[in-house]
């Protein structure tokens, strides 16, 4: 392919499969009968070019280079042509299936892009104008919080703690019931409490962990609900009012 004097730039591709697919489409190769020597040559040439331009080559590209060379070697070596069930053995089969599966989703991704662009041409009535009010009265626009949000928050709270005191040998026993009562006692007049305030109160890790477990238990018993204004924002614990 002397005609392709220009270089293929590795950084324009999503991964090794994307690059192989590009060669297949550009040179009109048959995906069911990939000329493995030719495609390997093209592939390695592209990697060499990237290396000479000091581009960091992702590990996946290197792994694929090895795979291609292994397939190429297998094609050259004498091998049985049929397996025990009489099916044709083709060292390329795995790569072929992988490429086909990838093609389907690459096409699906292109379809999604079209959908998103069409959608972008339509202008919707949305509640974006409520942002101003939101700032004045944050409590009104709280979102529901999932268990994953809660766990992620707990992790952040632990990481943001100053270095903990060395642990002394007496045992700190913080019971679940104690911590539950502590949380309920900390709720303000309106039955609200910020998660960051709750964590501040405790000094040792064990107290915090038990307090977190106590919070989960309170949620389970539907004594409190937890809200969050936006992603990574502080959590707000609300007492559930019965009736």
């Amino acid at each position: 392919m002397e005609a392709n004097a220009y270089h293929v730039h590795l950084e324009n591709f999503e991964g090794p499969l994307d690059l192989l697919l590009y060669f297949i489409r550009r040179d009109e190769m048959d995906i069911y009968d990939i000329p493995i020597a030719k495609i390997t040559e093209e592939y390695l040439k592209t990697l060499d070019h990237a290396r000479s331009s000091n581009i960091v080559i992702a590990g996946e590209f290197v792994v694929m280079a090895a795979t291609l060379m292994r397939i190429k070697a297998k094609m050259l070596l004498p091998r049985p042509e049929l397996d025990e069930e009489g099916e044709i053995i083709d060292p390329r089969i795995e790569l072929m299936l992988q490429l086909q599966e990838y093609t389907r989703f690459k096409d699906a991704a292109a379809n999604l892009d079209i959908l998103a662009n069409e959608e972008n041409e339509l202008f919707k009535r949305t509640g974006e104008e409520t942002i101003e009010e939101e700032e004045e009265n944050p409590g009104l626009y709280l979102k529901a919080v999932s268990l994953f949000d809660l766990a992620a928050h707990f992790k952040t709270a632990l990481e943001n703690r100053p270095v903990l005191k060395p642990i002394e040998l007496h045992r700190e026993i913080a019971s679940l019931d104690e911590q539950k009562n502590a949380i309920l006692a900390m709720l303000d007049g309106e039955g609200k409490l910020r998660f960051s305030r709750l964590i501040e109160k405790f000094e040792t890790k064990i107290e915090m962990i038990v307090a977190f477990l106590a919070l989960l238990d309170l949620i389970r018993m539907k004594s409190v609900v937890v809200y969050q204004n936006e992603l990574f924002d502080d959590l707000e614990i609300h007492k559930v009012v019965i009736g």
Partner: protein
Amino acid sequence: MQKNEQLRILEALLFASPEPLNQSRINSVFKDDPPKLAELVKKLKEKYEKEKHGFEVRKVAGGYQFATCSEYSPWVRRLIQNQSKLKLSAAALESLAIVAYKQPLSRFEIESIRGVDCSGVLKTLLSRQLLKIAGRAEGPGRPLLYGTTREFLEHFGLDRISDLPRLREITELTAADENSDGGVRAPE
């Protein structure tokens, strides 16, 4: 309550609703004897069609919302300049496509199709709320499973996941005729 009055209330709710309006929101607004949303919307649509408006009621993510008619986009675009909606990268679109058609599935399954590491792109998609953690797999290591969100449906203007275009069969990829049946449908 008069039928016409109900229709006007629905109009007001659609106008004010921050997200696609669904039946459960209608139920909470009307409290006793809530009207059937789908029926009301049908009437409203008929009315709009007769009167020829610049906007319409459309179904998305299991609810209804007002949207401008596509033929007026050029004008609206002049009004709302610099409206930079999030533009998704090729990596993001590929990962979303895989999750959309095969959900729920693990990061490993996504990576084995794309042939590259996906942890970064999945993190971004989670934080943009286009994907969510849909649970954990039963297998070894109990990996997290990914699924699409309501925001995903809204972003692509879909009512349900099953409204996604049909995923082509492998045999169709090289076939000249792409209209044959037997393709894979997105999960309900």
